[in-house]
């Protein structure tokens, strides 16, 4: 019957027209007839085959094929074999190391289907779905494990990163073994990510099989797989020799990966090798591999090397930025007493580090900023003094010192520390003065994209009032605006005169700060209105003033008793404007005010 079935399948593909006189069918027929003696179903099949292969019209032949096939399918459906041979003792369950205990199957189909859809379809919102599924613990359901693995290979990197960094590591060490079991060492990005998960999660201490797999991937894998696998080997001391060998590989990424693994390994030999690498031509590569992974011992060694270079330069003579950069990168996130000692000494005895002078101005600045930043993190009064000492030779470092001082001292102490008790700023050279202005500007207007003036309360609590006088003395309008507070008699006269300059030449930001200040509740209504109108009138309407919509809006909302005056002043202003659309804009404001006035009058008559 199976033979007949394959013949019929062939005819379905080739077409029943070819069944006429088909010798293969004709050969089957007698056999079927013979069996038909015992089982009637064979007889019927034989008749059907005869009709199919014998003389007939094409349609009849097609119908015959359909009928034989129908009968045969019915018969075959009752013959299906279910037996499985050789069922031995091969365990169904994955090896013990790759089990993921505690997975349930209690989540609803809807939730899982939504996640599946997100990972199999394309379109927007996929990341959100996956992330919220992760947050809701959907990946604790066994059935979402294949989806988690799929997410690892998602073309949208935010999804695959989420899978590699959060979702899969959450399964625990078992996932490493599972991922390694399914690792294709010639694979691409997805396989590489699997190894990144393994690196993150680690493998069980007794899991020889997984270790062998990583070693195999490190030796025989594609380039990217090798790199990803080598890093994973740092956790295993027995790999020292191989890692040392790889650290001398011809390929840069392999060496880098080996350096990272050696850093994790942290054996004597590996420390020696890393020291060699970072003092040699491979330093930039080694530095990147080391960053963030350094052990305290290794950090101390590098700090020592660092100090040595700062004091005496390199063996081949003077110091260059390239000699320092790798060490700065490697030590960037390190906090170590050796570094603290070094930077302290550097601030107290700069003369002991002559080779720093060999750097150019910019390089030296960048290096000292690192030092100041390290000290600033210490957050002690002693560290502040050290930063200030550094700032004497490199004024820009006040950018670190002043915010640090503000964290440690009261506002008046901060003021007096830099400006002296009588405001003569005696301690500061003119270079330092200009840095103070810079620092204050940054502090008073935080935010990078659209900086804002600080909230009034913060200004009044956080800054000594004498800064305002100093800013007026400096005739620095932006600082005056940023420090403005009630109780200074010089403020309003200064602003009344400065507003013309601000209105005419101020940047969009400055106009905004000015308006912020007006709205901060500093001034009585008359002053506020007058300052505002002067600002509007001062704008270069015929030039190119940035239109600030907030101004127009504020104009439309002037208090009722000032409407007449506003209309008058605006009309006077309009006369002097020659650009028609600007005229129109202001005219619209005037019209709006008129409409408001008549509406108000209407209200009054109604009452």
């Amino acid at each position, binding site marked *: 019957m199976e033979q007949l079935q394959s013949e019929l399948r062939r005819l379905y593909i080739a077409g029943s027209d070819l069944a006429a006189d088909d010798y293969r069918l004709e050969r089957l027929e007698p056999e079927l007839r013979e069996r038909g003696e015992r089982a009637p179903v064979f007889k019927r099949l034989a008749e059907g085959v005869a009709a199919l292969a014998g003389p007939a019209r094409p349609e009849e032949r097609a119908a015959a094929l359909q009928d034989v096939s129908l009968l045969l399918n019915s018969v075959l459906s009752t013959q299906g074999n279910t037996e499985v041979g050789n069922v031995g003792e091969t365990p169904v369950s994955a090896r013990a190391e790759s089990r993921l205990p505690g997975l349930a199957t209690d989540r*609803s189909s809807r939730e899982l289907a939504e996640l599946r859809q997100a990972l199999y379809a394309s379109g927007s919102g996929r990341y959100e779905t996956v992330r919220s599924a992760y947050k809701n613990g959907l990946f604790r359901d066994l059935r979402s494990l294949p989806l988690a693995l799929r997410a690892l290979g998602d073309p949208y990197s935010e999804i695959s990163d989420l899978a590699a960094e959060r979702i899969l590591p959450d399964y625990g060490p078992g996932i490493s073994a599972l991922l390694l079991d399914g690792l294709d060492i010639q694979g691409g990005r997805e396989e590489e990510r699997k190894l990144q998960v393994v690196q993150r999660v680690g493998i069980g201490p007794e899991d020889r099989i997984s270790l062998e797999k990583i070693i195999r991937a490190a030796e025989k894998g594609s380039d990217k797989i090798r790199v990803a696998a080598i890093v994973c080997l740092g956790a295993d001391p027995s790999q020292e020799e191989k890692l040392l060998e790889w650290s001398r590989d011809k390929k840069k990424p392999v060496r880098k990966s080996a350096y990272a693994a050696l850093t994790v390994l942290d054996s004597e030999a590996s420390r020696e090798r890393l020291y060699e690498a970072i003092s040699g031509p491979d330093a930039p590569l080694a530095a990147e591999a080391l960053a963030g992974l350094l052990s305290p011992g290794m950090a101390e060694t590098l700090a020592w090397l660092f100090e040595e270079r700062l004091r005496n330069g390199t063996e081949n003579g003077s110091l260059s930025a390239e000699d320092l950069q790798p060490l700065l990168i490697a030590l960037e996130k390190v906090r170590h007493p050796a570094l603290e000692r070094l930077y302290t000494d550097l601030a107290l005895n700069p003369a002991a580090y002559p080779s720093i002078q060999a750097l150019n101005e910019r390089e030296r600045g960048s290096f000292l900023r690192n030092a100041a930043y390290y000290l600033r993190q210490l957050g002690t009064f002693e560290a502040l003094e050290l930063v200030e000492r550094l700032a004497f030779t490199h004024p820009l470092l006040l950018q670190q010192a002043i915010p640090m001082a503000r964290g440690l001292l009261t506002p008046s102490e901060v003021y007096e520390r830099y400006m002296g008790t009588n405001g003569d700023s005696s301690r500061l050279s003119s270079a330092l003065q200009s840095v103070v202005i810079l620092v204050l500007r940054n502090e008073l207007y935080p935010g990078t994209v659209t900086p804002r003036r600080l909230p009034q309360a913060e200004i009044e609590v956080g800054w000594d009032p004498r800064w305002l006088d100093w800013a007026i003395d400096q005739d620095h309008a932006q600082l005056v605006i940023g420090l403005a507070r009630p109780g200074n008699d010089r403020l309003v006269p200064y602003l009344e005169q400065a507003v013309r300059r601000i209105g005419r030449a101020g940047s969009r930001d400055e106009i905004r700060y000015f308006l912020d200040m007006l709205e901060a509740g500093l001034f009585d209504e008359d002053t506020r209105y007058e300052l505002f109108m002067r600002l509007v009138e001062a704008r270069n309407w015929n030039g190119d003033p940035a239109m600030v919509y907030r101004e127009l809006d504020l104009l439309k909302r002037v208090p009722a008793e000032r409407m007449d005056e506003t209309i008058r002043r605006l009309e006077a202003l309009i006369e002097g404007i020659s650009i028609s659309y600007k005229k129109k804009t202001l005219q619209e404001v005037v019209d709006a005010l008129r409409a408001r006035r008549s509406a108000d009058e209407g209200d009054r008559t109604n009452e």
Partner: protein
Amino acid sequence: MLQLTASHIDSLAPNAAAAKNGRDLVKKNKFVKLNVSEEGNLLFGECLGSGKSNYVCSVDFVTPENPVARCSCPSRQFPCKHALGLMYAYADGLTFEQATVPEDIASKREKAEKREENKSKRESGELPPAKPKKVNKAALKKKIAQQLEALDELEKLVLSLVRGGLGTVDARTVKTLNEHAKRLGSSYLTGAENELRRLALLLGQEDRETGYTYASEQLTLLNAFIKKGRSYLRSKEEDPELKPDTESTIEEWLGHAWQLAELKEAGRVSENVQLLQLAFYCYQDEARKEFVDTGFWLELGSDRVHRTVQYRPFKAVKYMKEEDSFFSVAQIGELYRYPGGLNARVRFEGMLPREVTDADREAAIGAASASIADAVKAVKNQLKDPLADRAPVALLKASRIARTEDGTYALIDPSGATLELGDVYRLPQRTTPLLPLVAPELLEDCCVLAMFEHRMDTGRLVAQPLTLIRGNEITRLLY
């Protein structure tokens, strides 16, 4: 006192998004008024919306198995997120103030009561029964004639395809088949329409070789359908009074959608039934152009595994309730049974959930067939009818689940007989890859709910595990 659990509310929600939005309303404190009636069977309240006035919503549990949600919001989903939120708020234990039933709801309740009363009077014969639908004989005759004609045309098309051979099929043939399918639909043969479209899909798929096997199977299926359909329609043509055949699936094949009243009339109703859902999944049936939510349920106290099916046309997805996994026992007053084989479709309107107990799980284990041979016999008996469901589901006892060296999985029953476990073509996901990942003890002395499929190309009958049951654990592999 009204008992509401979050999972019950989830199951009432039309879709996952509505459930989530409902929960969010509670989280964001959007309910400004929460009330419960004195009898405790009506929740009502007000919820802030984006507009000026609040949405007034209520959920009426006066018939607890069929709660009625009402809301003044314009949503077309029932229950809407506000009604769902109201229930979640109650389940979360928020304070609901007692209040009298609002007038509009009281009057609606009255009307509903009246309707029920009339209905029961009609049933008991106190009132004259509602006029039976008059069958327009001429129209019916015309319809049957049209169906017969369409069957003839379908046969012609199929035969010409068989003559030419599947090897010659190209994109144009597929297009013709799809167009023809559309015509079948307009000739009242929606069942045939779906199956012809399925054939077109099989022929259009990338992997031609497996496509051929299933396509030739589909062609013989169409042959069986044409034959059976034609003789059934002819007998109907001769006797227009003939009632629809409630024993076989032919009516459904022709495209008939059973009305509950028809099933009731045919005596296909079981009363006071308790169902335990063992598996649930949703798949996209491209031939039907519908999502199909399928559930397999064990009727507690028997060994019958029923099937619930909900079709959601792609076009109407937004407005239809999306069924979901159900983790409680459904207590059902009237269970309507469709004609069919081992896992005939069932439907019910309204149910009361209750927690699954150990006794229920024991009952499930007790209902499993201890012998592969017995189960397979029943399965084969069904498969020999070409128009029967090709993928029957059965609950089987396993002494263990094993694996051969080449990676084939097998279920071994207490007598040592084996059944190959594989992934069937008709299910949307594979489940055998999950077997190595479940806790090893679940694979010994367990019960397996499995879907069978006969593979024409290999002559093997394989089964895909859908759910494992052991002790008090029900592990669902499919979703």
